[in-house]
């Protein structure tokens, strides 16, 4: 059992060595070649922030609840 574990560890270490030899490590000081802020601004202009669908669903649920049980509105406002 111990020998089997030893072999497994040895094989894993060998694969790790091969992986390190095949895939270069990224430099610690790697930086983008250009300022990316204009790209972010472009995205912000192109796709204005949207209200998530579940927020709309929640709002629709509350409106439906208020329409069905109007007497619940003061209770709801109390707990807000």
């Amino acid at each position, binding site marked *: 059992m111990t020998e089997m574990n030893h072999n497994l560890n040895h094989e894993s270490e060998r694969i790790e060595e091969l992986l390190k030899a*095949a*895939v270069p*490590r990224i430099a610690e000081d790697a930086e983008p070649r250009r300022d*990316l802020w204009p790209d972010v601004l472009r995205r912000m202009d192109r796709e204005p922030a949207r209200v998530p669908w579940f927020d709309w669903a929640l709002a629709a649920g509350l409106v439906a609840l208020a329409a069905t049980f109007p007497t619940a509105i003061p209770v709801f406002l109390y707990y807000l």
Partner: protein
Amino acid sequence: MPESSRSVLHRFRQGDADAFEALFREQQASVYRWILRIVRDAGTAEDLTSEAFWKIYRAHARFDAARGFEPWARRIATHVALDWLRARKPESNITPEMEATMTAGGASDPGVRAEIRAKTAKAFTRLPPKLRVAAVLAVVEEQPHKVIAEALGITATAVKLRVFRALRLLRKDLEQQGIRP
């Protein structure tokens, strides 16, 4: 944490664009490096960094200042990079840097033959994206398991398991290519 940093984080959470720009300037390079470690291509990492920051901005209301901006940003960046890997064909993930390594000396061991390096790199690109990310960050980039776990939203034990499975798949793939590691 200095009062000014706390104030920036608070204003960002309220959706303040100036605070967002300040955080972007501060974190741009580290988010870019993190994405680059996953996708291994500078141009793609630049595009994905701006996409990640756009998603960060959209999610500002869900930001929890108590848990820190950097780990949260890293987590969003990891998902953006993972989505990109999932959308790509495995064989097209060989980057110019990896090509150069295959033909020149190895990244860390020049003694490993070019053919073996090339086959290992190809086997690496064929790994399922979530195993590939865990393996590259833990083995190649030597990032702490805790940091990888936070970024992937899993436990450190799950990271170790993914690395183990990735190495096992790599070994099988290499054996099928006629290489006995």
